[in-house]
């Protein structure tokens, strides 16, 4: 297993007040994402556990793109990966942020 953690500063907090949300399932080519509103409002941390080693730079790029788009300030995001492709990861992250915004 490879563990990766990325910490970003955001310009704004993520809107809404949902304390936590989960989306996706740990299955082949899929992943689950747990989002918790537990950090300072200008910080977002993404922690990943993946059985596919060696793709740290791809994860870094996908997470940076998500943070730039969603501005998920305040969220700790934990990912259990089942070997998802970058586009799936990106969609799930945005889906998770949407669940937290309501």
């Amino acid at each position: 297993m490879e563990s990766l953690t990325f910490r970003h500063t955001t310009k704004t907090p993520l809107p809404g007040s949902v304390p936590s949300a989960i989306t996706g399932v740990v299955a082949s080519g899929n992943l689950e994402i747990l989002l918790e509103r537990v950090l300072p409002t200008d910080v977002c941390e993404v922690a990943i556990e993946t059985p596919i080693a060696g793709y740290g730079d791809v994860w870094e790029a996908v997470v940076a793109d998500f943070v730039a788009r969603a501005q998920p300030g305040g969220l700790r995001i934990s990912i259990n990966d089942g070997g998802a492709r970058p586009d799936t990861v990106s969609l799930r992250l945005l889906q998770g942020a949407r669940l937290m915004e309501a």
Partner: protein
Amino acid sequence: MAGTRAARIDPDTVSWYEATARQRVRALVDPGSFREFLGPTERRMSPHLPLFDLPRAFDDGIVVGRADLDGGPVLIAAQEGRFMGGAFGEVHGGKLVGLLRAALELKPTAVLILFDTGGVRLQEANAGETAIAEAMRAIVDVRAAGIPVIGLIGGRAGCYGGGGLIAGTCSRLAVSEGGRISVSGPEVIETNKGAEEFDSRDRALVWRTMGGKHRRLIGGADAFCADTVAAFRHAALDLIRRAPTFDLATLDAEQARLESRIARFGECRDATDVWARLGVNDPEAVPAMDTRAFDETVSRVGDADHDAR
């Protein structure tokens, strides 16, 4: 935990087969009533899977909690068939057993188990096997306390291995066409006995032998549902109302029912032979029947409903 949010879905249209465990639970019970025990934020994950370099799930593949069903309090467990085939590991099994034991104190209207499992998780098999035995014992205690335990089966992993054994101890079962109930799965039988005995790639054979329609016709399941969450909700409410008393008379009736089943159908080589002996006019037509036509067929067959189990 209670506040963890997941996407909402429409119970009338969403496919039970396609839905995740969380989607099934939320759409099945009264809106907004579900409260999860040991939810994903508590991170009760498998202590064993990292040793095998395998990914874990925050809920170890099972969602447990309390909810209201048509205003009545229920306890509910839902397996996630897509995470490791919904298999029973240590934490997964412990959550189900704990929920069942809690029923003795909380005294809900019923306990609902949404099976979706291939059986025991091989990477933590001893703990999984123990959990199966403990769950069966716990179900007996819950039923003896007068609380019905209802199994709902229609997920992509079916209900196999120890899950099939646990289902056998429930008060009543509802199944959909996509659901399958058995102990040894098709691949297991083929591996041990050869493709001549059971060809696991013959999907029609698999569904004839283990699928929802066959189980319903021979009385192995007590309701047949269309593949929607609303159909399973309707079936669950109906089965709670007509769950049998758990006493010696019920167990004697179950023993007699199973003995007579062996005597009548033990010689049959195919499920269609069983359906013919049950009095189904055109056994070959059963797999293609829609839910309404199938329900009519079931109502003409005497063996599908009984006071046993």
